[in-house]
């Protein structure tokens, strides 16, 4: 009896020590300059391959891609805004993100520990269902073997395995950084990974400081303070500047965007003419 109580106590403590995390991002589109540093930071961190002609953007592998939005007005009232798009790490309803639900090989999974949608290259056999399912075009297929020009393979990082022809790849929120931060925390006797100990390569590199990354569940983290996710309303942000992409699909993404400009916020979803920006019908489950 005593032992059982003790066990229950230990379990409870573990739960307290390791509460569920939901890593996510807040990207300030009014600060984003469209410089593309996040894209290159990501490519060089994650051994992303490149080819001589990358101008066919449909098969150009960019885990985070900066899109250009425009208000469509003519000169001189034109406005442009840049939107960096990593994998949105959809939680969907209870971890049913669009890609995870369709993968026949369990090559992609939703982590209940971190909220990160993983991609295991050696399990993937290239059916590309996940690419069809992803509403954000965040997944890329390796149509060719990755080839590094002679000598350049020297800079490849051992922390991320280079992919091969025939598999799908995507942004992992630099999961290998989380792993090494977790190892380090464990060695130092810390129970949790500190906010600054785990940051993605794009967040770290952004010269404008437009990306904030952290645990959306942790009220101490900057990202939580900015986003103020509302768990009773599908994690919708309480920040009036914030929005998510295609929110009404119910993908429940963990990447939030911010802008003061209404036309930018409106570009985040397919609104009907009579619908007010930011006010969308609730997703059905």
């Amino acid at each position, binding site marked *: 009896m005593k032992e059982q109580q003790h066990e229950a106590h230990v379990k409870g403590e573990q739960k307290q020590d390791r509460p569920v995390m939901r890593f996510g991002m807040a990207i300030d589109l*009014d*600060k984003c*300059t*469209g*410089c*593309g*540093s996040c*894209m*290159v*930071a990501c*490519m*060089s*961190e994650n051994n992303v391959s*490149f080819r001589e*002609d*990358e*101008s*066919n*953007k449909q098969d*150009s592998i*960019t885990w985070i891609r*900066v899109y*250009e939005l*425009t208000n*469509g007005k*003519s*000169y*001189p009232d*034109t*406005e*442009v*805004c*840049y939107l960096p798009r990593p994998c949105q790490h959809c939680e969907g309803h209870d971890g049913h993100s669009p890609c995870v639900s369709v993968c026949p090989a369990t090559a992609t999974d939703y982590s209940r520990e971190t909220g990160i949608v993983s991609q295991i*290259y050696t399990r993937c*056999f290239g059916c590309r269902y996940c690419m069809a399912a992803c509403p954000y075009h965040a997944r890329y297929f390796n149509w060719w*073997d*990755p080839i*590094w*020009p*002679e*000598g*350049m*393979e*020297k*800079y*490849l*990082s*051992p922390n991320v*395995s*280079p992919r*091969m*022809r*025939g*598999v799908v790849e995507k942004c992992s929120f630099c999961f290998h950084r989380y792993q090494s931060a977790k190892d380090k925390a464990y060695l130092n006797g810390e129970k949790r990974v500190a906010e600054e100990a785990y940051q993605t390569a794009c967040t*770290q*590199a952004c*010269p*404008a*400081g*437009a990306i904030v990354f952290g645990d959306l569940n942790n009220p101490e983290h900057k990202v939580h303070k900015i986003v103020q996710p509302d768990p009773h309303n599908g994690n919708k942000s309480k920040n009036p500047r914030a929005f998510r992409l295609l929110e009404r699909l119910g993908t429940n993404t963990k990447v939030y965007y911010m802008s003061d400009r209404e036309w930018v916020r409106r570009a985040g979803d397919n609104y009907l003419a009579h619908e007010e920006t930011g006010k969308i019908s609730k997703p059905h489950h």
Partner: protein
Amino acid sequence: MKVDRRSFLSFVIGGAAGTALSPLPWKLMDDSSIWSQMWPWTPVPPDGEVIYEDTTCSLCPGGCGISVRKVDNRAIKIEGKKGHPINDGGICLLGLSGLQLLYGPTRIKSPMKRMGERGEGKWQKISWKEAATILSEKLGEIRNKGEAHTVAAISGAGGGTVPALLQRLLTAYGSPNFMRMPSQSSAEEPVLKGVFDEEGRLGYDLENADYILSFGSGILDGWGSPVRMFRANSQWKDNKVPVIQIETRLSNSAAQSSRWVAINPGTEADLALGIAAVMISKKMVRSGNISGFRGWKRELLAGYPAEKVSETTGVPVDVIVELAKGFGSAKRPLALYGRGKGVTAGSLREISAITALNALSGNINEEGGLWAVSQADYIRWPKVDTDKIASAGLSQPRYDGAGEDSSGLAQSLIHRIAGNINGEEPYQLQALLVAGANPCHDLPDSQGVNAALSKIPFIVSFSSFNDETAAMADLLMPDHVYLEKYEDVPVCAGLVKQVVGLSKPVVSPQFNTHHLGETLITTAKMMGDTIAGAFPWEDYETCLKETLGNKWDSLMETGVWEDSDVNTVAKKVKPAPLDTKIVTAEGDVNSFPLLLVPYDTIRISSSYIGSTPFMVKTVADTIIKGKDGFVEINPQTAEANGLKEGTIATLTTPRGGARVRIHLVHGIQPGVIAMVRGLGHTAYDGYLADKGVNINDLIGPVEDPSSGLDAAWGIRAKLDKA
């Protein structure tokens, strides 16, 4: 044995069912997916001990601190250095992809001499000793003929000991012809000399300003120290500082500013003067730091009423008044000068107008204002002892005529080199040394430059990369890249304080290259006499240590030395007379109805360092598609010319023509077309070569008669459907 139909079918069906029930098909399927993925050519990066080494990035004049992650001896990732005074952890995409330059196939791997015809690409590897002998003998031969002045050197935009050693070699040798590629520093020279009447450089106290008026400066497109600019911009957003971007085209800087003021191209000076006139008439002037103010004021008020300025610039009168009120009433306003990356000088008229605007607001050498400060002067070597031949050579006129014009504003007028060589005046160049520069691609009128260089009998390139100029050379003596060497990196780039970074070797040299400083010292020593005497150091590292003196220790420890206690050189502004000549675009309006303007983007490198494969990968398919480059055009202009999105057209200017594709954008003035700088390479590798058009093929220098500097901001053009 007889096989009947029945037993045959039983055998086949039974066999198939048996196989299906066995693990064989599943095993085979599993194996085939493993076989088709585990190809031996998919690299498996070896693991090892991870360490970080700090150094300074010198790929652009920005001078950011970087941290290089290494696994054993391999550098695997470059990151921004936290706590660095310039970038504090931030980094741009060129800096991030430096390892593609270090390990890339565009490196020149050993000294080589040309075998075939020029530009044919046939080279023979030689030893460093042989290369140094060829160079010193050739130079000795020219010098003995008493023609030392016919040797010229072109150096890149950077400063510090290495370009200084090259200049020193030339001086001791007897040639006045040390030239620099255009840079923001060289574009600032005329401001200091022409407007402040002093030597020095400009500093912008951006972080403390509370109203920014940018006359086309690419705040987010590579102007100044790019990462510092990005950080300042975010700070302005947080503090709600108004940033007004005055530009013909909706650049990234304009897109993220608080207000884009669209202006007729080339009329920035008029708008600045118009704003100044409104400020004066509304009594919003705070300083009399303008010499001859009363006379200038009278002329200004008479010549630049808002209505007239509005007509010239296309900016409505109420906007001019609003800008004047905003600028005049802000506590710490600051006007920025230099289009795009700020590399092209601009006209004296424009420089003077924008500086006068700063002076009127009383911000010169004040918090949040424009600072005129002295250059960092830590290089204090003894004067070169010149012998008779050297003195004779040095007394010859400079090849580009810099310093001899009545204005004498510039130390280097490199844009004249093509015209002078092709016109065979003032004398014929016998040899050219090129270090850290790619004039064949980066100078305006690149076809003229190429033709000119082909007339120089002996060209030596010290480039680390297979660039267009190295392809034209006779002798290649490749330098290390920045991650392989010690070097001082003085940072100007619009900083108020003096900052010197130190570049340290992070990896050992990957190829058979030599430090350029070392090559220059060796060459001088081989030439003997007073030339050797001017280089008393045993090697480059000794030279660097001695030069940096007491800064060396702190540089080794922290990687950066900074001094906020700067010497200001001047406070009073002397504006150019208001009748100073206007620099217009080359070409005739009737045969060339459109106006082509170059633009800069941070994603494409437009100087000596070529764009990396990662950078090119980020470039939109509306800038490069396959091999084609695009021109931006307003849909209205396109329609009038029968052009549609993606149409192939021929773009012609008075300087040349090119095949281009059309990209329709609303954010450009009708009648104006724009093309990005930095594409159209013919050298390097397949990741960069043959993509888009080099705008320098289409545009030539336009000299400002008041300063002698190249002030071209556009050229007349026409588009024909192909």
